[in-house]
């Protein structure tokens, strides 16, 4: 089997007393699509933050293509080719949709090239209509799309999606799922999601987080059957 694209070796995070992530060993192959599930506070977002350099791990390593990036700055990691769509859309509210995408495309493309890339991306995400609107004025769903567009425009090797379907209508969810699959043809993804239907639509392999540890890792159908998962996760959801 080929060397993994991304690998973490007993990665841990500690804030004072609490320890949201505990020695996680995780591995993702080139071009793989992996789903990350687990109840709130299982450490998924913290995990993502460490992968993208927003947090420096207290222990352990993050290897991207065998290179240790656990102490790299966020912008360096981004340049290595890891993009993230955060849970709460993080976009440039004061700028127009076009400018948002442009800022991303501009980093990797020449000035004239960037222009075209932006147009294509707007087209692809169906944002052409609102291209000149300020992102701050858009609806939540659309902001999600804009952020996705930003991430894609930097053309990363690995894309982290933190709850891409959150707060979306049913057909928006569908659209997103389609897009994710389409993206996956060329790129590796890690998707954090609660929405089981969405997961069914996209996932093959699923990793379950619980209390900062990897609980199980298995094919989606087995996971859905796994009673343990049901208890700690679906059970909770059902209760909620």
């Amino acid at each position, binding site marked *: 089997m080929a060397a993994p694209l991304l690998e973490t070796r007993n990665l841990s995070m500690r804030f004072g007393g609490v320890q949201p992530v505990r020695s996680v060993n995780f591995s993702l192959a080139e071009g793989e699509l992996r789903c990350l599930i687990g109840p709130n506070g299982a450490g998924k977002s913290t995990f993502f933050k460490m992968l993208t350099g927003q947090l420096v791990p207290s222990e352990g390593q993050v290897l991207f293509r065998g290179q240790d990036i656990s102490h790299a700055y966020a*912008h360096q990691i*981004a340049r290595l080719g890891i*993009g993230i769509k955060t849970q709460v859309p993080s*976009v440039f*509210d004061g700028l127009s949709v076009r400018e948002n995408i442009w800022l991303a495309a501009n980093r990797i493309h020449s000035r004239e090239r960037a222009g075209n890339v932006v147009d294509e991306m707007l087209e692809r995400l169906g944002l052409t209509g609102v291209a000149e609107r300020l992102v701050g004025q858009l609806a939540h769903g659309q902001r999600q799309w804009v952020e996705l567009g930003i991430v894609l425009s*930097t053309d990363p090797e690995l894309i982290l999606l933190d709850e891409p379907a959150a707060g979306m209508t049913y057909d928006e969810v569908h659209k997103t799922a389609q897009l994710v699959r389409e993206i996956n043809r060329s790129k590796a993804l890690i998707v954090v999601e609660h929405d089981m239907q969405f997961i069914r639509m996209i996932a093959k392999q699923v990793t379950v987080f619980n209390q900062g540890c990897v609980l199980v890792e298995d094919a989606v159908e087995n996971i859905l059957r796994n009673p343990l998962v049901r208890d700690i996760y679906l059970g909770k959801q059902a209760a909620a």
Partner: protein
Amino acid sequence: MNARVLNFLGLGLVGIVGVAFLILTPRLAELDTVLDLTVYMIMAILALSLALIWGYGGILCFGQSAFFGLGAYTYAIAMFNLGESTIPLLLAIALPAAFAALLGYFMFYGRISDVYLGVITLTVTLILFNSVNSTAGPEFHIGVARLGGFNGIPGIPPLNYPGNKAAVIDLEGMFYLSTAALLATYFGLRLLLASRFGRIIVGIRENERRAELLGYDPRAYKLATFTIGGALAGFAGCLFANWGNFVSPTIFGLAQSAQIIIWVIVGGRGTLIGPIVGCIGVQWLSAALGANQPSGSDWWARILANVPLILGIILVAFVLLVPKGLVPTLGEFGLWLVRSRARRVATGLKPKQAEKG
């Protein structure tokens, strides 16, 4: 598209007005008016320097006067030692820029942000004030130039045409120079902001974390912005030292740095023309209030001629009522007018169509 057209129209307008002002003023206005306008132009450059780093770079700098003062002092000291103004002028830009770069590195690479930036910059300018203020003794001199402490350095030799000591730039010359410099700065900054760099610093202002996750290093961009701002302020300082032929430590003082912030606030953050307007407006006002003091003890007259009082009210009023600043608000008002006009026209048309149909 439309926005872009308006944008170009605006630029053109500013250009035309600016040049007209540059050419006509000395022919039409009294000499003293020209002299006043000269200093307003110079201060407007200072205002622009803060407009860049605060309004666009999102860096709250309470110590812009530090670079302004450094520029002025550098020019003065170099001038007394060299006597020919080309190198002093360049120094007056380079030194503050270097200082800004140093300070910026210290702050941004130390991940210091918002209020803390404010405090550090404020503190720096206060340190400069205190230090320079206590150099009255004869032992404090750089080359032949006495620093002069509280009294400052009077009788600074004016700029001369590069290379020729004798050809000193006269009062009108100073006006042309300052106004031209202001226009150049304005259009220079417009270019800068339209460039990749400009768009990126605005992006960083909007959402630093996101910019970082896209692979931009905010620290570097902020540092660059801060340095440019420092250079501009230094240049303004040099011109200022020329205009009054003196410089004193109050240039580093709290009042001075505060004033710069007022200009930007009143004129409008996130615009360039705004701070220019704010700067000229506020300065003109405090000069007008200061002149023609009532020479009596009439209480109300005293109130009305009481400059801090009036300025204070203006500032509070602006923050409460016109938080965006003069220019953006007027802009919006203008747009609103146009729109409602358009609407009225549209509604006016409807019945006609009805008749047709």
